């Protein structure tokens, strides 16, 4: 009958509310609630697993967590600016844009979360090697986003000429929403895609072949794919809460490393709760395996990405700071709290590549 397969205790938010109620007696931090935003997406695995396992709540004690799920970076930045969320998991490109477009006033990156998980997958019938790209159509998720810039940079390195803003050139760069890319691939509108997980693995299930893992073009095979950001106002007023969240994040990353299968199941469960569908194993397994969850924001790669974007003409410097060459991301990081947390756990500090708080 109706609702016969409904879950016992229903969704995760009910869980967290209950948890908050039970632990309300405990010590309280400076804020009653903290509003956390993330995507129901594997690259946001830290948030998914940490919330699912209650690792954030444990650190936050009596402070309640309210979650908000987004499916696009800009919306999350807008929500952060509006005060609808305080802390968010987000990709590097929206974080850079949000920071520069607000003249460095709206947000700070306070930690890293994930690296890797981006691949160039292609239709093997039309592209068999990296030298076949000329004249082909390659999808990226969005003009000027991390993958788009990476592809343009890669193509430039290979000597292809592509007009960044229109995507026309030796290789056609087709910007399609990640949700539509598999459809476009099936339909034959694109011959390949430079996309993050799980879209890359999804395309593989449709017959595509992995041509390149983005890791391979980066030194150390690491580049940032997810950051933790906080609204500067919240950071000023409730640094204890931010610290607690960071503790939760570090714990979660450790948990993921220690229990990869449990973590994978948790992440998939969280996705299912949020959107009603779980990922099939064929997509989940390779995708999860390709993502590294780490606390280091890989600040150097962020600067490199920004520089590539500036080179491609896809990132303009804010009018106020258009002095020097290269993207001016000074002050985008505030890693003091993260380093404090890491120190408390006996781990070494992470570097901000000179982009720390002035």
């Amino acid at each position, binding site marked *: 009958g109706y609702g016969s*397969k409904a879950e016992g205790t229903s969704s995760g938010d009910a869980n967290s509310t209950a948890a908050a109620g039970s632990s309300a007696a405990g010590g309280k931090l400076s804020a009653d609630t903290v509003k956390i935003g993330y995507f129901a997406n594997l690259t946001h695995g830290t948030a998914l697993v940490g919330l699912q396992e209650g690792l954030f709540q444990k650190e936050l004690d009596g402070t309640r967590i309210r979650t908000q799920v*987004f499916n696009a970076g800009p*919306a999350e930045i807008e929500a952060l600016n*509006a005060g609808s969320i305080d802390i968010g998991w987000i990709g590097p490109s929206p974080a850079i844009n949000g920071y520069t477009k607000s003249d460095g006033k709206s947000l700070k990156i306070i930690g890293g979360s994930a690296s890797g998980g981006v691949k160039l997958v292609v239709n093997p019938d039309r592209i068999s090697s990296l030298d076949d790209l000329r004249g082909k159509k390659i999808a990226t998720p969005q003009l000027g986003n991390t993958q788009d810039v990476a592809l343009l940079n890669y193509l430039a390195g290979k000597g292809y000429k592509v007009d960044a803003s229109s995507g026309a050139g030796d290789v056609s760069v087709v910007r399609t929403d990640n949700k539509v890319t598999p459809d476009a691939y099936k339909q034959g509108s694109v011959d390949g895609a430079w996309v993050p997980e799980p879209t890359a693995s999804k395309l593989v299930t449709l017959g595509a072949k992995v041509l390149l893992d983005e890791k391979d073009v980066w030194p150390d095979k690491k580049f940032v794919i997810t950051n933790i950001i906080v609204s500067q106002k919240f950071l000023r007023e409730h640094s204890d809460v931010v610290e607690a969240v960071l503790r939760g994040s570090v714990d979660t990353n450790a948990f993921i490393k220690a229990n990869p299968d449990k973590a994978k199941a948790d992440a998939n469960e969280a996705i299912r709760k949020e959107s009603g569908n779980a990922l099939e194993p064929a997509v989940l397994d390779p995708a999860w395996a390709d993502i590294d969850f780490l606390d280091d924001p890989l600040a150097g790669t962020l600067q490199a990405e920004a520089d590539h974007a500036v080179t491609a003409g896809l990132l303009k410097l804010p009018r106020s700071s258009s002095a020097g060459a290269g993207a001016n991301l000074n002050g985008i990081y505030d890693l003091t709290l993260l380093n404090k947390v890491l120190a408390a756990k006996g781990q070494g500090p992470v570097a901000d590549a000179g982009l720390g708080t002035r």
Partner: protein
Amino acid sequence: MASTDTTPFLDKREAAADTADVGAGLDALDSVSAQRSSLGEVLRQKALPPLIGVLVVIALWQGAYSLHLTSSYKLPSPADVWHSAQDLWYQGTLFSIIWTSVWRGLSGFLLAVVIGTPIGLVVARVRPVRTAIGPVLQGLQSLPSVAWVPAAVIWLGINDSMMYAVILLGAVPSIANGLVAGIDQVPPLFLRAGRTIGATGLAGARHVLIPAALPGYLAGLKQGWAFSWRSLMAAELVASSPDLGLGLGRYLENQREFSDMSGVLLGIVLILFVGIAIELLVFTPVERRVLRNRGLLAAVK
């Protein structure tokens, strides 16, 4: 020559005059002035055609599926969609999903009516206002709701008021424009008659202008509902939060994210279903009453 009416004569001439079949069909239906009919008749006339329509669509769909016109992930079978619906049913979320959206859509729509009606009245009747904001209203109407979303989120945050803001920005211009169009079509004779019997100012609006413009206003309301509903769907796409609940737009978007075509189709079917249900339960009866009362229904028969 033993016909019971003149139509056969006329038809012959007409058919000769313009040979188009559609024309003849239209015309033949013109002249039927149906008698009031029994309940069974009514059911047969009103319930049967939509049902047949639906069945035909499903049959075509199943046919396309069975003939393997395209791969099943492009076009799932009706049964697949039915299974998706069953899943929702057993999870007990089906009604809450529909209700979340319908409630928000309806309340936003009512608010839009309350706001849009006076605006429409003033724009239609006060010349300078019309030249000043008439085109702006039309411009607003053609502004996609998604365009408002960033602004609405920044100003209002992610909460119900953001949703309502987006709905209002979509529906108010549409309702106001509908009223303006309705008022423009009111024969001036009625307005003058109203004025001579003393229906001026607000009384005039209430007793003459609005009733006289009602058919056009209703059309505007229908479009306004469409805009409300579409804007709501757009607003739901932006973010989901436990406070906001899971609505149809969100459901559709989730299915899309998973490239779950049968889920996407289920979402489309559910949204269509709500649209049609609102049309049949709210607008059609009101519209029929309005038209019948004015003797305009003859045109439909």
